[in-house]
């Protein structure tokens, strides 16, 4: 594989027509991150993505890229809305896995002495891990309404405040969702899980704003140093997982009909305008709305937990909610012409700059808030989308630190209670359903989030706004 350095943070893999590549690959990374990226198959996967019929522009690799299934995690690809394909693998099993940031009226000095009580209260109120059923029972037509209306359904059903839905990507609801395209199995799998975090790398973290880097953008988000905030990372739970499973099975057959061949079955795709493509998009949007409803219900129960610990006047306000596993129709300038494309973001975050009409008025002059979790022992970042994202990455940026260690390697030779004690000595109280939940997510398992952010900042994809540090962690 020939990788050409374009500058200190951009690398290019040329289009190899003999391999069937229809586009080049553009990688955003520092030399050190590139060295780590080359240790797994993620760049090979980015080359495979470049083979998708109708791809527009290069196959893009964000600085947190690591090996996934079909698409790399941290991969972005836009396909022509009329002539291109949609690939469920470009969205992933966890449709609309995403992050929401909530600011509080509590300050660090008030939270530190109560952090154990707070974490334990949240642990009781918001199920996580592999065993928990959610606090909300949702049946039949009500579930379909949640699939159509997302966070807006949750707010109307009493799980939130009216302004909540306003402060989310797509206002927490993708239009043209089609609950009829979601199988009964998917509904059965997801129904009891509304209001739950799940497991794996999903979490809820109590953090404080350690340092402000952009005063104007921080002011627009009403963030200040020493303020307690909460970062929630989860998705569409079993409902989204089953939607992906169902359509991957169907698309393997359909690909033959459309004469599409690709080197990896997990990249299965069909023309966007085909009946199969439209069905998938209808179901995917419904699953995305379920994820927004899920994160909204979690916010509602989080408010309850905070008020029990800090008093009934405690405020929790949504800063914003972003998704990082999604395919969305967007309009982008491509080689001097406006074009409708389907942007697949697999482990990548939308990062629209200031002035974009999609943004709520509060962020119109600063850019869209982007949240990039690090690991439970390090830091997370608040960014805003910058103009470079529109010219380079179809308005996208990274979504996390990116794993560099397998789950098995992370567990090897380590003891969960020692990890917990070490983190406690650093002022971070961790609770998890399982010991593995702590060990698999140790800070050492992840790349350096600060370096990932530096690449995003220096390449003009996004701007640094604030660095957050955890003090309480709830893992699945």
């Amino acid at each position, binding site marked *: 594989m020939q990788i050409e350095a374009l500058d200190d943070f951009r690398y290019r893999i040329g289009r190899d027509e003999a391999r069937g590549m229809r586009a080049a690959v553009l990688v955003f990374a520092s030399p050190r991150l590139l060295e780590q990226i080359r240790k*797994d198959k993620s760049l090979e996967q980015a080359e495979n993505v470049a083979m998708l019929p109708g791809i527009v522009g290069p196959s893009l690799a964000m600085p947190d890229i*690591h*090996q*996934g*299934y*079909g698409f790399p*995690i941290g991969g972005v690809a836009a396909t022509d809305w009329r002539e291109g394909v949609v690939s469920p693998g470009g969205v*992933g*099993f*966890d449709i609309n896995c995403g992050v929401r940031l909530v600011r509080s009226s509590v300050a660090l000095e008030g939270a530190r002495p109560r952090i154990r009580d707070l974490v334990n209260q949240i642990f009781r109120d918001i199920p996580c*891990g*592999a*065993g*928990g059923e959610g606090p909300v029972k949702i049946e039949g037509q009500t579930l379909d309404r949640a699939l159509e209306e997302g966070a807006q359904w949750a707010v109307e059903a009493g799980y939130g405040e009216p302004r909540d839905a306003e402060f989310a990507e797509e206002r927490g609801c993708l239009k043209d969702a089609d609950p009829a395209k979601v199988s009964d*199995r998917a509904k*059965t*799998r997801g129904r*009891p899980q509304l209001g739950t975090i*799940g*497991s*794996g790398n999903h979490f809820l973290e109590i953090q404080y704003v350690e340092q402000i880097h952009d005063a104007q953008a921080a002011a627009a988000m009403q963030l200040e140093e020493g303020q307690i905030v909460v970062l929630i990372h989860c998705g569409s739970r*079993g409902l989204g*997982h*089953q939607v*992906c*499973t169902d359509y*991957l*099975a169907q698309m*393997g*057959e359909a690909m033959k009909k459309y004469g599409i061949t690709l080197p*990896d*079955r*997990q990249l*299965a795709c069909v023309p966007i305008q085909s009946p199969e493509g439209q069905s998938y998009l209808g179901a995917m949007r419904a699953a995305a709305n379920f994820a927004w409803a899920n994160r909204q219900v979690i916010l509602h129960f989080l408010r309850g937990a905070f008020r029990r610990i800090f008093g009934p006047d405690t405020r929790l306000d949504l800063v914003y909610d972003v998704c990082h596993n999604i395919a969305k129709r967007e309009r982008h300038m491509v080689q001097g012409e406006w074009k409708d494309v389907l942007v697949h973001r697999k482990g990548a975050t939308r990062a629209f700059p200031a002035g974009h009409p999609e943004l709520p008025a509060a962020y119109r002059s600063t850019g869209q808030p982007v949240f990039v979790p690090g690991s439970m022992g390090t830091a997370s970042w608040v960014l805003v989308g910058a103009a470079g994202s529109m010219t380079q990455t179809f308005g996208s940026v990274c979504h996390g630190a990116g*794993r*560099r*260690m*397998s*789950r*098995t*390697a992370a567990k090897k030779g380590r003891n969960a209670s020692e990890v917990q004690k070490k983190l406690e000595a650093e002022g971070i109280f961790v609770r998890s*359903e*399982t010991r*593995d939940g702590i060990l698999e997510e140790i800070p050492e398992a992840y790349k350096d989030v600060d370096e990932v952010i530096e690449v995003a900042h220096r390449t003009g994809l996004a701007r640094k706004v604030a660095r957050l540090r955890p003090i309480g962690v709830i893992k*699945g």
Partner: protein
Amino acid sequence: MFEVLEHTADIGFRARAPSLSGLFEAAAEALVAIVLNPANIVPRDAIELSAQGESNESLLVNWLSEVLYWLDGERFALRGFQVHRLGGGRIAARATGERRDCLRHEPRLIVKGVTYHQLKIGQNAKGWWCEVYLDV
């Protein structure tokens, strides 16, 4: 018989068995053991499972997706897989178990889906083997 395989973000397993039917049974047992502790599953009820696929690979993915649906959708802890029909792109099997119990069955990981990533099925002098990666 199975062993866990490493993956940067997720998890996989390698299963082996003397026959292809045995391999599908072993792969199902591996998936269950990744999701929960199967040691305490009481065989209270029997269920029938089935799947279809155009190749051994897609049949294996669809079969494991069926098992996963029972684990995560029906919340049923199952073991003792017995394949009673395999051929022509179809599998039919029976398993026994009970409703999942968070305390007794010790949940381990939530598996989101069964992938085609680096999926392999092969045959050698000792029988059949497969490698499967799961999204967790």
